[in-house]
């Protein structure tokens, strides 16, 4: 075996009581695609921050190209030839592609524009250098990030969950790019929790669990089941089979809704129509940024339609388009927003007070005053039922980890026993075990006759949960696709807008 390009020995990093990384060993060979696999919270991101110089390890040594490496900053890492593409892009939306790149790479604008085009051709990273970033799709933005890294001629490229934002077709294209880069002499550290992807592209995999390495394997020699066991430490729970129902009453109906938000960066919605019946889970697939937040705000009542737009949104048979969020909740609607901190919960308030925000109609108030004992009992029940890991109900919501807070919010909304439940990104940042518990719970509620609407970026999740899927792309919604008769690739076609049906021909 050739000498490794990057070699980590005994790397540890703690934040207060939390040991994010403990005694990590890792070798990345030259010209290889090396996976770092682990659940959310396993310590992958921390490890990458250490390698990229964002943070410094408490213990251990990093050897780069045969020499010890002590990085004080990302800028130093880049000078040494280490580049990183972040999960949440670090691009400037109001600047153009070439301006974004010019912030990192020295050179004249015209030369840079030309180099962006050349790199695009060579590595399958086509993007218009003069386009403003806010006008680009997520896939294009990722390409800009990769180009920006490549222009500093790195020898190691770190990609943090690069496929989490891409539709299936773009994933193949990205993989093609990565293989070309590897063949061009760049090593790649590929961070992911998606097993099939790692098997498809990586030569080596290092698996992390709870901050420790649980295995170094060749992913091509193991099936997804083996990798999953290394990753979560036990077998994956089997998905709960969905009981098919049909013909329940309409709990949510949207008819031909057009909406142009005030915010110029927001996506305009056009011709949105959907129906969710009792005993049915409807999933909305699509890459984020295609109108999900705008649609979610219209359904939740955070955005209220103007009076002229009547008869567009019905809940439990009532026209609610012009009603606010509270009025909709009174009809039996409950909502779990995608961002937990700030919309789903108030971080500075205790869990008890956060329960009160939406659960107050459940007898937690008397004559407008808070019934402390009841509120506390409700909160404790929610914590118990939904396995929220917290010292107690009086802890500030912001002190919980993302996954635990999500469990709490989902639990709180379910305990309202709504007629219509709307969950945006139900399992974002939730560990695999808890995510599957949330999904099972949703399916059970559906079987009891609740109408559920789910927005998710995770196709696997939607296929596990939903009876029907509709895909949101550029603010328009695909027709209803029965999950049973649909393959992920079909959804993928709609996700990138390749499935636009031909316009009906007009006979002359």
């Amino acid at each position, binding site marked *: 075996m050739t000498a490794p390009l990057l070699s980590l020995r005994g790397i540890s990093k703690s934040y207060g009581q939390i040991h994010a990384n403990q005694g990590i060993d890792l070798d990345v060979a030259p010209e290889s695609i090396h996976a770092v696999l682990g659940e959310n919270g396993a310590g992958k991101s921390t490890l990458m921050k250490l390698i990229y110089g964002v943070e410094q390890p408490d213990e251990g040594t990093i050897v780069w190209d045969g020499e010890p490496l002590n990085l004080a900053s990302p800028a130093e890492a880049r000078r040494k030839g280490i580049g990183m593409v972040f999960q949440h892009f670090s691009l400037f939306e*109001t600047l153009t592609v070439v301006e974004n790149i010019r912030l990192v790479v020295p050179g004249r604008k015209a030369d840079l524009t030309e180099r962006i085009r050349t790199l695009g051709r060579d590595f399958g990273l086509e993007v218009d250098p003069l386009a403003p970033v806010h006008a680009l799709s997520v896939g294009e933005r990722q390409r800009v990030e990769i180009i920006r890294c490549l222009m500093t001629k790195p020898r190691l490229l770190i990609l943090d969950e690069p496929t989490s934002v891409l539709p299936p077709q773009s994933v193949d294209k990205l993989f093609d790019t990565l293989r070309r880069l590897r063949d061009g002499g760049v090593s790649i550290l590929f961070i992911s929790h998606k097993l099939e992807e790692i098997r498809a592209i990586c030569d080596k995999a290092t698996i992390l669990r709870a901050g420790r390495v649980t295995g170094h394997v060749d992913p091509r020699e193991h099936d997804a089941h083996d990798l999953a066991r290394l990753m979560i430490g036990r077998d994956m729970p089997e998905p709960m089979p969905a009981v098919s129902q049909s013909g329940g009453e309409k709990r949510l109906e949207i008819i031909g809704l057009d909406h142009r938000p005030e915010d110029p960066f927001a996506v305009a919605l056009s011709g949105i129509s959907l129906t969710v019946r009792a005993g049915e889970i409807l999933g909305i697939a699509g890459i984020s940024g295609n109108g999900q937040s705008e649609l979610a705000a219209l359904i939740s009542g955070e955005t209220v339609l103007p009076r002229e737009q009547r008869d567009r949104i019905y809940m439990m048979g009532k026209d609610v388009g012009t009603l606010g969020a509270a009025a909709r909740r009174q009809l039996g609607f409950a909502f779990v927003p995608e961002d937990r901190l700030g919309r789903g919960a108030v971080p500075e308030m205790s869990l008890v007070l956060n329960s009160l925000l939406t659960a107050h109609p459940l007898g937690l108030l008397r004559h407008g005053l808070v019934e402390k004992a009841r509120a506390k009992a409700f909160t404790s029940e929610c914590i118990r039922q939904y396995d929220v890991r917290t010292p107690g109900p009086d802890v500030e919501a912001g002190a919980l980890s993302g996954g635990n807070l999500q469990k709490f919010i989902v639990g709180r909304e379910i305990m309202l026993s709504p007629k219509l439940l709307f969950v945006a990104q139900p399992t974002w940042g939730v560990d695999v075990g808890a995510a599957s518990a949330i999904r099972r719970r949703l399916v059970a509620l559906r079987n009891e006759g609740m109408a559920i609407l789910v927005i998710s970026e995770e196709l696997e999740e939607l296929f596990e949960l939903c009876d029907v899927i509709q895909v949101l792309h550029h603010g328009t919604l695909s027709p209803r696709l029965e999950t049973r008769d649909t393959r992920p690739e079909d959804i993928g076609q709609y996700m990138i807008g390749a499935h636009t049906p031909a316009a009906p021909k007009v006979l002359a």
Partner: protein
Amino acid sequence: MNALEFILAGMLAAATPFLLAALGELVVERAGVLNLGVEGLMAFGAVLAFIVVYHGGGHLLSFVAAGLGSAVLSLVFALVALGFRANQVATGLAIGILGQGLSALFGKTYESLTVKGLPKLALPWLSEIPLAGRLFTQDIVVWLSLAATLAIWVMFAYTKVGLVVRATGENPKAAHAIGYSVTAIRFAAVAFGGTMAGFAGAYAAVVYTPLWADGMIAGRGWIAIALVVFGTWLTGRIFLGACLFGAVSLMGLAAQATGLDVPSQVLASLPYLVTIIVLGIISADRRLLKLNGIASLGEPFER
């Protein structure tokens, strides 16, 4: 001279204090910092400049002193608001009050004294055009302010420095991630803003009205801040806005000269009324604000 000629002749000079201070605040806000102390920074610069000129130091030295003095005061703001991450609004107000207080203290013995202003330079050819020619007879500071406007426009539109400042204001976390020191850039922007506010104060005190009176800045620093929003953070619009306010502030005088029977207090309050009305109109167009607005304005930066 009729009212129109009077306004044309004086508009640019009247606009200059607004313009200089607003250009400085533009750079500060583009970097993501909200410094509400402009009024005090101008007042402090004004008194320093007046003292220098009164004691025979000359106009050039007075501008240097005012620029340096206000820059130092603005760095106190930067230290507290950026270094210690204090609330920018509260810190800006406090520094503003401090500046006004220092101005009153230093200016006490100079109350009602006068100095000599600057001569007007007439541009050849252009100043001979009938009526509009009035625009082209101005003192050197006005001409330099116009040059500064152009320079700042070029900086934001074409140069890397401008790009870095814009990037810092839009997404400081990302700017940090790609290796720029957000705090250093913001310190520099605040110091620049302080210098410009000092120049603006100096112009008001030793060129435009070369007479010392406590409180002579009279809200012009606040209007400069409003101008930045009013111009939706675009250099060209801020220039136009400054001209508008320059013209409006002269209208009061012009109206009095024509013998219009309106109380002078009403006329003097015209610029402030216009500020409120224009801000209301601009803010109604949320798209414009969102497109050009500074995403991280006033938020302390934490890694």
